[in-house]
């Protein structure tokens, strides 16, 4: 049986979901027999590959760059999974949503900065008006809530997908910790 091509992506999140992924410890070795990790913050590859079976995305959709990436990822992924509360609900990144972007930037880069007070105009991607859950922009096939989702929930989801079944996360994970 050929291996399943898996990608993981880190958008506007704290990397806690990836930590929880790594927290599967020795079970990662078992998983590695069935999956190929073709793209990830843990893999040194710059461009998202053409054909991916399952992509897990951590983090909310917060910038124009995220939006561009997300559409590309959706196009090249058979199954898209929202991993963790930021991807599922916008969570902490979404706490800026009741303020306009310019006052958020002003607060972060001017009022609270002691050195080089300036709002970045280059290199840093432009923020969207609101940080969004992924499914407000593209079709998402599976949701693993949790901050972070427990390693067992991630393991269960991947094991079911490897076995060719659709996992039912409703009893394995919930909003918050």
């Amino acid at each position, binding site marked *: 049986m050929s291996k399943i091509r898996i990608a993981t992506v880190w958008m506007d999140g704290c990397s806690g979901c990836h930590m929880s992924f790594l927290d599967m410890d020795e079970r990662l070795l078992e998983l590695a027999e069935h999956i190929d990790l073709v793209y990830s913050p843990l893999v040194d590859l710059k461009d998202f590959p053409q054909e991916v079976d399952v992509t897990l995305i951590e983090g909310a959709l917060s910038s124009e760059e995220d939006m561009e990436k997300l559409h590309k990822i959706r196009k090249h992924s058979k199954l898209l999974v929202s991993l963790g509360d930021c991807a599922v*609900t916008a969570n902490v990144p979404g706490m800026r949503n*009741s303020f306009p972007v310019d006052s958020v930037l002003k607060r972060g880069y001017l009022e609270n900065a002691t050195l080089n007070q300036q709002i970045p105009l280059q290199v840093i991607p432009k923020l969207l008006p609101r940080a969004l859950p992924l*499914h407000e922009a593209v079709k998402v096939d599976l949701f*693993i809530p949790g901050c972070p989702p427990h390693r067992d929930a991630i393991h269960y989801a991947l094991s079911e997908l490897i076995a060719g079944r659709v996992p039912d996360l409703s009893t394995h*994970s919930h*909003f918050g*910790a």
Partner: protein
Amino acid sequence: MSPAVEIKTLQIDGKDVGARADQTILEVARENGIDIPTLCHLDGLGDVGACRLCLVEVKGSNKLLPACVTRVQEGMEVTAHSPRLESLRKIIVEMLFSERNHVCSVCVSNGHCELQALAASLGITHVRVPYLNPKLQVDATNRRFVIDHNRCVLCSRCVRVCDEIEGAHTWDHFGRGIDCRVITDLNQPWGNSDSCTGCGKCVHVCPTGALVEKGRAAGEMRKRQQFLPYLTLMREGRQ
């Protein structure tokens, strides 16, 4: 001699049950091990049918009826669980999440929240309606407690416990529909309230992290609601 008790017989989810005539569908269902989800209901407080989670189907009625405020009737055929009701209950809870800013992960009530638990028990893994992200106030003027409107679900438990049990009626509603808020006195800061006795009952009946004690970090706020049926019972005994 106790006065004659009128007994009604009815069916809930196909199960034959007996009830006193003054009982609600919710009471009878729970007595018979049939769980109907609720959020605004709390044993020991009067019911108002605010959250709509306990809606049930009653044969012969084209409307859904809230089980907490619907009295039993002879021969009633009640459906408390059906695919239609499950799907309505899910979307009600999803809309509660979208209407305010419930960020479970950083909430003082994380892990001890009735809304969070309800979402989990209904199998909600995401919210299908867009989040509204309203800009809402946090009133920390009270010496010991905080009201965070971001996490309020307008269940009105605080309003009822303050009125019915404490007798102070500090809390009430203000505004309508999506603009509705709970307020203290005449929409004054809680810390300036003349009527508040500082008893904290409102804090402990609140199902979410909307009413909390000061000085709690994420996940540290546990509510103690056991006092309520006890208080009610003691008062009934004295009358």
